[in-house]
Every structure is written in structure tokens, then in C-alpha cells.
């Protein structure tokens, strides 16, 4: 079931989410046509139960889809929408059509709702904004949007009246949810960067042979493959949960290890590509920029090291193996 589903998603992304489309959306073209392909295919309801009109996948089963969103640099909040719709369904709220991303509200005495750096805020239809005790589902088009660090992200502000936007009774930890998503997307982008770098090493000739025949390049590619396989395993751990809600400690492993790998692999892949990989025209940058972006999104490695370290020291005594087992064993 999950393989069939993931293969269908892959095919749609191959056809519709080309690097040309990614560039166009980054440059400001509407993401709406691409979203319609996804919505019409029913992919955004994968986590919703079959009774509720979805595909009834579990979070571990969803992992390949999240990975694909990263592998194809999907410039839309599909991963976010998948989880948000599951949370809405659980809260008994009928999800509106359109994509949803996550926001975290800063307190504002004037009654406005202000969210710094909403990931994919510029291309989302809705933002599920977490407040102290509940969430608000707010329409993106009613927000005043200003720049954030990445072109698809945005800082968003709704006027005081927007508080009457739909209240949703859910209390997820935004950072944990984001870290789960972006760890899986990092794993996907890492695989793409690795495949492209391997291909380039086979194609590019210097000194009369492909550079991939040189031991120094081979060993760099081996190191990349080590990071990618560890990151991919970590990201899978991040999606192990008995519910739709990611488990914070497993996510901490996922996000910290994928973020570490992102830094190493981005650096090695650019090194192997030489100057061409550094150009806007060459596609590598679409993915290596995302390695850096998603390393930041949902907390960098040290944020999550602190979570893991505090848990290991405060809640365990004796051997670290016990926490390793608790976080890596699956049923």
C-alpha cells in the first residue's frame, strides 16, 4: 500500500515538479497549478483515515512520501499539509481545500497574530498557527507578508480581527513537527545531491579520465554515501510513532543527524563539482541550498543535541544503551 502510494507521488513529482518549475516558483510564479495536481490526486490526505476520505497511512508508512518532497525540492508545503490535515481530522475539523503550513504565534498585546519565519508561508493557502492553548487556522491571503530568510518563507501578520479565524483544538509542538518533516526532506535532498554528484564524477573528464576514477574523489563519494545512509536511517527513526504525532526524542535523533549530514554533504558535493556546481544555471544549487535551509528549519543539530543530552542525563542512569534501545527499537 505505502509503496504504491509513494510510487504514484514520485511519478507526479517527476512529471510536474521539474527543476524548471522549482525555479519558476522560487522566482515568484504562482504555485497554484502544481498544488492542484497534488490536491486532485488526493495525495494531501494520506494520513487521514479511510473513513475520513484519506488513504489511512501511518506516520512510518508516510516516510517515503516526505523523503520524496525533499528529493524533488518540492516548493510547496505538501509534507506540512499531510500532518496538519491529520491534526485537524483528529480535532474534528473539516480541512479546507488548499495547502497548510505551520506557524508559531509571538505574543502581541495589540491583538494581532504575528508569526516569524513561516516555512513555505509565501506558497501556502493556510497557516495553522499555534498559540498557548490552541491553534488558529488562518488564511494566508489575509496576512500581511514580509520577507524571511528564504524566498518561499515569510513573516506573516494578521490584524486583530483575524483572531476570529477558525479555532482548532490541537496542541502539537511546532518545532517537533517541523523537525520530523524537514529531517525526512533532508534525507531526500541528500539522496538527490549524492546521485547527482556520483553522476557528475562519472561524466566529468580530467587528466584523460573520469574524475570518479581518482581515489581521492572515490573516497569523498564514499564518505558522502556514509552520511546519506546514516541520515536516511535517522530520518526513518524520526517517523517512528504510534500516532500521527511525531515522537520528540526520535525526532531529535532524526533532525540532528540529518542536519549534520547536510553540512558535510553540501560541502563535499560542491567540492567535487568544482565551479560549475556553484552556478545558478546548474541544478545542484537547488538542492544544496535546501540542505542548508532545512538544516536550519525546525532547529539545527545543536538544538536537538541539547534535547537528547538533557534526556540522557536527566532520565537515564546506567548505560546509554537503554535510551538507544528506547529510541531505535521498533515494534
Amino acid at each position, binding site marked *: 500500500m505505502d509503496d504504491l502510494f509513494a510510487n504514484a507521488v514520485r511519478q507526479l513529482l517527476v512529471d510536474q515538479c521539474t527543476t524548471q518549475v522549482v525555479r519558476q516558483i522560487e522566482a515568484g510564479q504562482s504555485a497554484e497549478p502544481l498544488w492542484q495536481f497534488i490536491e486532485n490526486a488526493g495525495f494531501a490526505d494520506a494520513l487521514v483515515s479511510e473513513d475520513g476520505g484519506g488513504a489511512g497511512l501511518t506516520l512510518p508508512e508516510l516516510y517515503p512520501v516526505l523523503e520524496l518532497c525533499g528529493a524533488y525540492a518540492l516548493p510547496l508545503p505538501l509534507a506540512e499539509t499531510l500532518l496538519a490535515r491529520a491534526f485537524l481530522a483528529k480535532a474534528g475539523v473539516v480541512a479546507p481545500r488548499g495547502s497548510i503550513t505551520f506557524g508559531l504565534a509571538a505574543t502581541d498585546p495589540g491583538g494581532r497574530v504575528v508569526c516569524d519565519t513561516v516555512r513555505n508561508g509565501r506558497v501556502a493557502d493556510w497557516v495553522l498557527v499555534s498559540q498557548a492553548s490552541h491553534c488558529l487556522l488562518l488564511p494566508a491571503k489575509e496576512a500581511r507578508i514580509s520577507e524571511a530568510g528564504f524566498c518561499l518563507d515569510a513573516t506573516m501578520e494578521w490584524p486583530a480581527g483575524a483572531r476570529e479565524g477558525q479555532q482548532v483544538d490541537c496542541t502539537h509542538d511546532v518545532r517537533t513537527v517541523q523537525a520530523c518533516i524537514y529531517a525526512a526532506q533532508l534525507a531526500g535532498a541528500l539522496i538527490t545531491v549524492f546521485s547527482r554528484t556520483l553522476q557528475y564524477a562519472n561524466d566529468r573528464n580530467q587528466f584523460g579520465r573520469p574524475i570518479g576514477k581518482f581515489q581521492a574523489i572515490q573516497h569523498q563519494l564514499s564518505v558522502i554515501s556514509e552520511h546519506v545512509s546514516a541520515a536516511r536511517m535517522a530520518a526513518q527513526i524520526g517517523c517512528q510513532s504510534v500516532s500521527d504525532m511525531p515522537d520528540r526524542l526520535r525526532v531529535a535523533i532524526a533532525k540532528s543527524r540529518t542536519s549534520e549530514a547536510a553540512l558535510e554533504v553540501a560541502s563535499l558535493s560542491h567540492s567535487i563539482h568544482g565551479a560549475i556546481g556553484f552556478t545558478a544555471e546548474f541544478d545542484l544549487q537547488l538542492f544544496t541550498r535546501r540542505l542548508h535551509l532545512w538544516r536550519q528549519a525546525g532547529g539545527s543539530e545543536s538544538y536537538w543535541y541539547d534535547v537528547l543530552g538533557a534526556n540522557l542525563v536527566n532520565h537515564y542512569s546506567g548505560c546509554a544503551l537503554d535510551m538507544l534501545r528506547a529510541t*531505535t527499537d521498533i515494534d
Partner: protein
Amino acid sequence: MSALDSLSISCIPAEDEALRLPVREFLTRAMRDVPARIRAKSWAGYDTQFSRELGRQGWLGITLPTEYGGGGRSPFARYVLVEEFLNFGAPVGSHWIADRQSGPLILKYGTEAQKKFYLPPICRGEAFFCIGMSEPNSGSDLASVKSRAVKSEHGWTLNGQKIWTTNAQACQFMIALVRTSGDVADRQKGLSQLIIDLSLPGVAVRPITDMSGDSHFCEVFFDEVQLADDALIGEEGKGWEQVTAELAFERSGPERLYSSIVLFDQWLDFIRTESGRTPESLRLAGKIFAQLAPLRAMSIAVTEKLTRGESPVVEAALVKDLGTGVEQMIPAAIADDLFSRAVQNAPLELLQTLNFVTQVAPSYSLRGGTREILRGMIARGLGLR
């Protein structure tokens, strides 16, 4: 690409996981009074009596068939046992090689008579093996071995020398890779594996002291050693293929991520105290943990492949190269944590454990194949060679 996405998160079957509780109870008692600096020797520490006791418990040769005295269990059963042994720092060195690779090798390639002769004492913790691969001029270039066995009237006459042979001074048997035909220029062709009884006339074993002061590896000399016909294990001339299969067992196990775990646990105990706890140490604990967790899941995924009879050579190389990197990072990072503090108050036991692990850590990425050999194997798996 296949080696990259072939490792999927896997679970240890419940019947194998059930071994953990009894083995942990046993180890909690057995290791109670052993200091961390001794437990830190990990699988380089050995104790013959301890191995016999594990044999009595039925925990040696657990993957070998019951008809030869084994446990008849899956590689996951061994995974659980070994994970506990390593985390407790149990002295498993005596039986380590026999249990990990010599037993499975004899089961796979041995004659019925060889299996009946060697496997039951391996399972009882009475027959200990070492691996005769490296020679003074054959390290990473293993195919250049020069030790030679020549067919004689009653068997083989062996001459040559092995080096860096772990624990040879305490073993009864060596499985050696030697040349049985052709010469060095024939490379992988003409090599065979022989089981050598180390008590035979003409065998001399000389321990080598390492930089930590221990003598866990040896030189072994063969001077006109007379071996019987049945010293040959497997097929004559197929030594290279057999050794390659053997190395998949050698490289894939949990010992490739837990070599510094006793030090890590000892340091965690310190940072759990009021005077040891700092924000920097919590962050470092998380960093080390974030490395170990995916590696453990990868090691379990590799074990899952072994249970299906696969030989995941490239995956094992990935895990070993990453794993030894973490094992070596642990003492380096812990030293920096302890000695970057304004107040340097770490307990003596922790410092001694740290110093021991620091001194043996270089061996982690040498034994069982250097980084360069492993990365070359991965590159071959990626189609670059």
C-alpha cells in the same frame, strides 16, 4: 545507490530480544566489581573462565546448529547477546573470533568431520581461534601473502610468518590465509585457508606490546610445520573468496560502534553529578547519542540481511567506517569537555578510562580493514571501480 537505500529500519524479533534480560542479570553480577578502565578493554579483554561460563549458559555459538552444540538461533540472537557483552565491557576476547567468524566459517566450508571436531568445543568456550591474515609485508594488500603450505606425503608443510594476530598467545587454533600454489604474482589465485594447531612443533608465538602497555596482538612464526591433510578448510585455491565472506561477518557487528561505550557511560555518570554537569557536556552527550542511534539501527538492519542469508559487504563497510569514526570521536571529545573546564575535577577512574581508550582508539580504524580499504570497497559498490 542500492547499498544506500537497502538499509531499512528493522526490528529485533521478540524471541531474540527475550535473551536480553537473563544475559543482563548475569552480567550485572559478573561485572559488578570490575573497574571501568578494565571494562573499557571491550572485546580486547579476555578471561578463559568467563568464556567457559558463557559456554555453560549456552551463549556461545548461538547461531550454530544444535547438532554441533550450538544454539540454533538467528543472527539477531547473537546481536542481542553481543550488544549486552560490549555495553558491560565483559571480557569476551578469548572466544570472540571463534564465536564471530571461525565457527560460522567452519560451518559453511568445513567437512562433516571438521564440524564435529571443532564446533562443539567452540560452543563450550574451550576452543579459541585467531585469524592469520596480515604478514609483515601484507597488510591492506592481503593478496600478497607469502606464507606457503606445500603438499607433503601426509598433508602440508607450512613455512612463513603472520603478524598483528589478535590473542594468538591464548588460542589453540589459527585459521590462516596462505599460498598453496603459484606465487605472489598470481595474487588472489592459489590462496587457501588452513586450520593450524598452534601447539604443533615449529610454531612460535611472540606477543607484541602496544602503546597502551597491553599485549593483545602477536607475531606467529611457522618453521617446517607439519599439518595433516584435513588442515585445509574449504576448497584449495578458494581462500580469497572464503576470506571475503568471512570479513562480512567481521565488519557488520555491533562491536563497530561500542568500542568506546564504557568510557561514554562512565563520563555520563560524571555529568549526572552536580559538579560534573555543564551545558556544554549535555550538548556533547546529545551529539554522541545522535551518532550512535542511527548506527545502531543500521547495524540491526545489516543483521536483518544476515538472517536472510545475504552477505551485505558494502553495507557492513559503511557501518564500520562510520562506527569507528564515532568510537574515535568519543575519547577526543570527552577529553576536550573535561579539560576545557575552569574547575577540573573529574574522578580518577574516569581519567584512567579516558587515557586507556585514547591510547587504543587508533586501532579501531585499522583492525578489520582500514578506512581506505573500506572506502575503496564502498566506491566499488557505487560502481566507481
